[in-house]
């Protein structure tokens, strides 16, 4: 059996705040296979960004437990210098808001070239040439001229392309894309999703795609995990998740989306509000909003149970317990 590229085991991340301890991620496990895309879906506060940022060593001041094995090494046990050597050639990230991820005072090309020179002993000229190539690769027209533009001279879609170019500069094995298309218009979103798919095929890198948009996941992920209040609620292949959603939260999310062929009908919204992470609900965090809530859900967090009749499909819900009569 081959090792997954990234194996996150029982990750827990908590922050101290003046209001109390925020448990952003509570015992999350997932794997990313080489060359595949893992989609992480969840709403605000589900812990999807914190979990992946912790893996990349970007959550300062947090209390972190668990393991994140990347190519045989536990990322959570590495020193800052060792992590820095992995970020770039090993793991690269693309964030939601490209305008705040680039320095406004430096030219785009300089920022990409600097990234290359920080990791490889190449001359400024070589790095600049590579930066031009990269900008061309991600579809920036006339890259040899646009390379000397400042970030404000780029549109949102072009900035996101530049961010992707920067992330790809060292040909990472894993790209973490955190809501890469959320700030973009739909037609530009389609361009970026297509671009990421093409680059994945060309470079054979694995992608973690974090989004709140189930539609984006449906188009591009191989495996999907659904997070809620810091926990993984359901994990399945893309077809398994959309074909046979098993967790009431996933069902609720899908029911919340307007269906194009059923316009005007009432949406089956999820009642109530997302929970507080300082005082999360007892048992299953979804129980206060769940239409199928049972006594057991209030007292006991459900185990990650196999969904009956489906392979490699798990759901953290007591409804999946074979001992419970349907």
């Amino acid at each position, binding site marked *: 059996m081959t090792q997954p590229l990234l194996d996150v085991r029982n990750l827990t991340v908590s922050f101290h705040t003046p209001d109390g301890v925020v448990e952003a991620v509570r015992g999350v496990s997932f794997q990313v296979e080489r060359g595949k895309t893992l989609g992480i879906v969840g*709403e*605000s506060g589900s812990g999807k960004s914190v979990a992946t940022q912790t893996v990349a060593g970007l959550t300062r001041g947090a209390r972190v437990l668990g393991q994140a094995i990347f190519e045989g090494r536990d990322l959570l046990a590495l020193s800052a210098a060792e992590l820095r050597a992995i970020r770039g050639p090993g793991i690269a990230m693309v964030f939601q808001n490209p305008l705040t991820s680039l320095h406004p005072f430096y030219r785009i090309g300089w920022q990409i070239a600097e990234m290359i020179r920080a990791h490889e002993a190449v001359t400024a000229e070589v790095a600049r040439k590579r930066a031009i190539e990269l900008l061309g690769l991600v*579809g920036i*027209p006339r890259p040899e001229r646009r390379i000397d533009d400042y970030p404000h001279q780029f*549109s*949102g*879609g*072009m900035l996101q392309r530049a961010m992707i170019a920067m992330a790809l500069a060292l040909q990472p094995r894993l790209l973490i894309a955190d809501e890469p298309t959320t700030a973009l*218009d*739909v*037609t*530009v*979103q*389609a*361009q970026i999703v*297509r*671009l990421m798919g093409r680059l994945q095929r060309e470079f054979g890198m694995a992608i973690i795609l974090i989004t*709140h*948009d*189930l*539609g*984006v*996941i*449906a*188009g591009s992920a191989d495996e999907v995990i659904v997070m809620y209040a810091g926990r993984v609620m359901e994990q399945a292949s*893309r*077809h398994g998740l*959309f074909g046979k959603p098993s967790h009431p939260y996933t069902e*609720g*999310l*899908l*029911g*919340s*989306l*307007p*269906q*194009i062929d059923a*316009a*005007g009908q*009432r*949406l*089956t*919204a*999820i*009642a109530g*509000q*997302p929970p507080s992470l300082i005082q999360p609900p007892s048992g299953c965090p979804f129980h206060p909003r769940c239409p199928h809530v049972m006594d057991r859900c209030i007292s006991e967090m459900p185990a990650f149970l196999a969904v009956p009749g489906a392979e490699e499909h798990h759901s953290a819900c007591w409804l999946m317990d074979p001992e419970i009569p349907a």
Partner: protein
Amino acid sequence: MTDCLLQVEHLVKHFPIKGGLFGNTQYVRAVDDVSLDVRRGETLGLVGETGCGKSTLARCIIRLENPTSGKVVFDGNDITSKSDTELRPYRRRLQMVFQDPYSSLNPRRRVGSIIGDPFEIHGVASGAERKRRVQDLMHLVGLNPEHYNRFPAQFSGGQRQRIGIARAIALRPDLLICDEPVSALDVSIRAQILNLLGDLQKELGLTTVFISHDLSVVRHVSDRIAVMYLGKVVEIASARELFKHARHPYTRALLSAIPIPNPDLDAAREQIVLSGDPPSPIEPPAGCRFHPRCPRAEAKCAAEEPALTTRLADAAQHLAACHFPVKDGESVALAGKLS
């Protein structure tokens, strides 16, 4: 024309930007000659991407902006050049729900007084009567009336949007303009607010203009949909007609870009990925404004601006501004134009 509550005629809004060494003033052509009708009781969806002028159009309709030229006729009265005092009686009939439930509520004021403002301003109710009516409204939009004395910060995003909606419907307006009312909300909360808006519309008999960049949301709520691109309406039709028989290549591209939460359907449909970004509204392209990105563009498109009119054999209510409208079942020629 009695079934038209609102008529917008050749509306233009240009914002001047001062610049250049010699003081040349340029203009952002945010809305450029837009005409449309809103019928009594219907929901008109207004879709388009960032910068297409949909919000400016809405702000001109309720006179938060003064149009550069053109007319806004509300219930038979031209309100385009009315003074603030003359506008007052219309203001209570025209209300707006804003996108951001965080910046559209004053953080230092209690929710009860925010929702009660319209009663105060228009001298409808005061004192105990006002409080009773505010609490009725809070109940109507699904807020706990006991939270009358709380501050906005004590509410979540979805609840704040409910506060904004309560304020907007307080005076039972005839026309409600919702500017991206659910874009800032999480998926599960978004569905709650969409359901609420639907219920209120039925209950109060509202006419609604619903602005969004999200076609699936617009499709869900609208009777008719107008698609805007760079300050122009490029296509307008009933929602069903637009989704089945879109004529404008831009509409087709928008439709194909909607992410569908179903992997099989998603893979099966025609993918039209436009190249490039929307151009600047300061110097919009000549002819059809969409032609630099359009996979069907020909020489005529760069030279001559297409009129918004009935194309092919469509119903009289289906208008599109395109010289080469897409026929049913035809694919939008896309060879060589992909990113």
